[in-house]
């Protein structure tokens, strides 16, 4: 496993909020990260329907985005979200896990640009998508 990807995996697994939400790394590649989050009754936003709150899906997409930055070929030392714009397409189906796939598609010396999409078990209809700008802390040469 390349060093950058090993780093990204430990980066995610060390985040208490991500752990509390039950996030799991599904796949990592160069500038890419797939993270999943199981359905959990504690994360419900509408008790009448059992639909997961959008905020929990935002947290998953934010974490996947940060992981994609950490997996970039430049092997950043760390990253933080500068801004994230989330579009909500539909309610996630109750009982289904959510998967977010993030791609860090451009970096400058100090900024990384990311797009991310989230699905439930219906891979044909995304639940939400987001784009973000992240800080890029490069390693000392």
């Amino acid at each position: 496993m390349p060093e950058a990807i090993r780093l990204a995996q430990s980066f995610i697994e060390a985040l208490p909020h991500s752990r509390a939400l039950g996030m799991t790394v599904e796949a990592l590649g160069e500038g890419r990260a797939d993270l999943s989050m199981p359905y959990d009754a504690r994360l419900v936003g509408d008790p009448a329907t059992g639909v997961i709150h959008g905020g929990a899906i935002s947290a998953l997409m934010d974490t996947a985005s940060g992981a994609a930055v950490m997996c970039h070929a430049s092997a950043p030392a760390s990253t933080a979200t500068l801004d994230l714009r989330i579009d909500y397409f539909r309610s996630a189906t109750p009982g289904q896990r959510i998967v977010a796939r993030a791609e860090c598609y451009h970096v400058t010396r100090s900024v990384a640009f990311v797009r991310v999409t989230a699905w439930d078990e219906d891979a044909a209809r995304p639940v939400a998508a987001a784009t973000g700008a992240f800080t890029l802390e490069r390693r000392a040469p």
Partner: protein
Amino acid sequence: MSSTRPEPVQVIKQRRDAALEALVAGVPYIQWLGIRFDRRGDELTAILPFDEKLIGNPALPALHGGATAAFLEVAAVIELAWAGMWGEMEAAGTAPAAAAARLHLPKTIDFTVDYLRAGLPRDAYARARINRSGRRYASVHVEAWQDNRARLFAQGTGHFLMPEAAGQHEA
């Protein structure tokens, strides 16, 4: 002109606090994050008491960007629902039941979070301002701070789809 005497202050406070409770208490995710609301008249302040599970970067440590985003979005959604149920509640003179209160919850269309500085491991506060609220759509801005009201650590803007069922009551 009505000659009825003003309601006793305790009756008013009890109704408004009960209505806010009806809106917030039954939402599991709000409870899980630990978000509470402080009310002064119709003004709400959302409070996110610090908790270890909100931490993103344990090295700094700093609040998780996702927890911050969720906090801002909850503050915006509750502000909109609260504003939507206020008139009805005051006219009826009673707090709605939880299920009726939640009919006022809008759906988020999009939400943009601007992270201004790291969220410190301590309590956070947020206030939302409704910039535009129409029959179908609303635009809401939220500001969040920790120690100093003037030093925001995050702000957000969201667009929301207003609930049709609740809108019909407000003719």
